[in-house]
């Protein structure tokens, strides 16, 4: 390396403060702007949800949540998430494993297709389900003749939710597994571990925080999905109405306390997700840093 003399720059920047920092006025304006936007579009609406939910006191709130239709919507949402999250977790691990560890033709196409649900509007996803499994769809009449109901029943809601939550786990794991490489796994194999043993004792522990993070996001979306589910649900109250649909139905009933009580449960879920996510991000980066040091 040769030290080149730096060209003499005209001294337009004042020397009394760090050249890389913004002017204090600019910084204050930017921070003020960010805080205002956050307050207007995030904190205020969130506060409104809880204020409206308790508009008729704690008794009104509990009363709204003990309604049979509301209970059924909570149960349905839990069932759907319980089915969708494990399936998409299994898929996500399998896909990430295939993409990160093997070279094959069509790999980039696979990665693109995993992302498809992010770019397709959820309503379209729902409509595709109806076109496939509806009474006049491609597969619907066949299935109906075996007595299998898909659309306007739980399986349809599960399918639509599976579709929209499809990429979350895979998206989280692919870059992580690619970055980590396969050295640890090869070491395990050379030491005589079976495929399963390697997977359970090396691969999984290596990605556990990333995996948890993906599962969390997947779960939040599975419980909160509206568009795709609205198309395939048929909106049967106390039957195929999930929590987000129930919020809309109650709102349209002029039942503000009911609507916002259910909405507050969803908001609560979002807040818990956010807290756990922040915690995981902190743990997750710590883990990675540790691995880089050793």
């Amino acid at each position, binding site marked *: 390396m040769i030290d080149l003399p730096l060209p003499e720059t005209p001294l337009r920047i004042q020397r009394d403060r760090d050249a890389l920092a913004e002017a204090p006025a600019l910084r204050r304006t930017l921070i003020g702007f960010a805080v205002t936007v956050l307050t207007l579009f995030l904190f205020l609406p969130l506060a409104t949800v809880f204020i409206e939910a308790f508009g008729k006191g704690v008794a009104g709130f509990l009363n709204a949540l003990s309604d049979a239709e509301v209970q059924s919507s909570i149960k349905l949402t839990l069932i759907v998430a319980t*089915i969708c999250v*494990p*399936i998409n977790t299994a898929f996500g*691990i399998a896909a990430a494993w295939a993409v990160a560890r093997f070279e094959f033709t069509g790999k980039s196409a696979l990665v693109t297709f995993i992302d498809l649900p992010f770019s397709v509007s959820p309503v379209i996803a729902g409509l595709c389900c109806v076109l496939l499994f509806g*009474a006049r769809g491609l597969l619907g009449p066949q299935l109906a003749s075996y007595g299998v109901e898909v*659309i306007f029943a*739980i399986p349809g809601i599960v399918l639509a939710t599976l579709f929209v939550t499809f990429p979350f786990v895979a998206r989280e794991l692919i870059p992580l597994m690619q970055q980590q490489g396969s050295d640890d796994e090869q070491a395990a194999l050379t030491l005589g571990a079976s495929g399963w043993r390697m997977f359970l004792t090396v691969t999984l522990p290596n990605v556990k925080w990333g995996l948890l993070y993906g599962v969390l996001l997947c779960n939040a979306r599975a419980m909160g999905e509206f568009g795709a589910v609205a198309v395939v649900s048929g909106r049967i*109250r106390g039957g195929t109405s999930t929590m987000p649909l129930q919020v809309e*139905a109650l709102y349209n009933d002029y039942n503000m306390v009911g609507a916002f009580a259910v909405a507050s449960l969803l908001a609560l879920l979002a807040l818990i997700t956010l807290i756990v996510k922040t915690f995981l991000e902190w743990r997750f980066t710590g883990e990675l840093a540790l691995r880089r040091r050793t």
Partner: protein
Amino acid sequence: MSMRIFPRLVAIALTGVLALASGAKAEINLLNVSYDPTRELYKAINAAFGDIWSKSSGEKVTIRASHGGSGSQARAVIDGLKADVVTLALAPDIDAIAANSGRLPADWAKRLPNNSTPYTSTIVFLVRKGNPKGIKDWDDLAKPGVGVVTPNPKTSGGARWNYLAAWGHAQRRFAGDDSKVRAFVRAIYKNAPVLDTGARGSTITFAQRGVGDVLIAWENEAFLAFDEFGKDKFEIIAPPLSILAEPPVALVDANVDANGTRKAAQTYLEFLYTPTAQKIIAKNHYRPRDEAAADHSDLARFPKLELLTIDAHFGGWAAAQKAHFSEGGTFDQIYGTGAK
């Protein structure tokens, strides 16, 4: 390896779902697929019917409801929503189910009294307290600067009644001069910046969000908003001329036979014509067919106005649907890309 667990997981999940879906068949379940503003009406009707049915048969009957824009609800039944009965906003939506799915016969309307319409309603205006824009008649809706709220006739049944009521008024005012009628209805829809998909959506837009000066609404919907949001906020204005809206009900034969619910579903629809139900109907601001059964105070609230009928003034629903709401019909011509 995990690829091999995947199908097994799916199988376990699906069996779980099927078990859940098929469980608990000890009682009778009916599904009533209805349009948007009937939520409160059928809540009351269902409770009354449940009592009567359990007393007479000893069975417990649970009636579930699904509400949405009349057109989109018909669409859902065509796509396989297992409705035992449909109670929609207008006859063409049930005709569409009959024509596209064959789940009920084309002459469904003849199976119950009054062309299968146990109650009627009409179209009125809901305005803000004190009627600041001085709205009295349809003419006032076409004036520049009046904000009109009405749903989209393509998806909402109520909106189609609204549209035809305005059209009928214009026909009379301009003695059938077609270009003037079109210009008049176009002026009204030009005043409507948002078209919600269902009648209830429009009511919320007008009453809750405070958009517009006048809501063109079902009479029952206007009364409900009036009760719900306080009489100090709104006024109901009845135009001198409106339309007789006849929301029909029908049994969906293929579905009740598959569900084994024909008897209960049929009794449910017949129940709508009984004095007990007619009284509930009037209480919920629908006009009962049997006025003798209703409370006098409920009847007294209905404004007296001249009502056009779909058969006498628009040549029946089939003709009206084709002329106004089909692809390229008058609504398409005056609203959206076709509007000039």
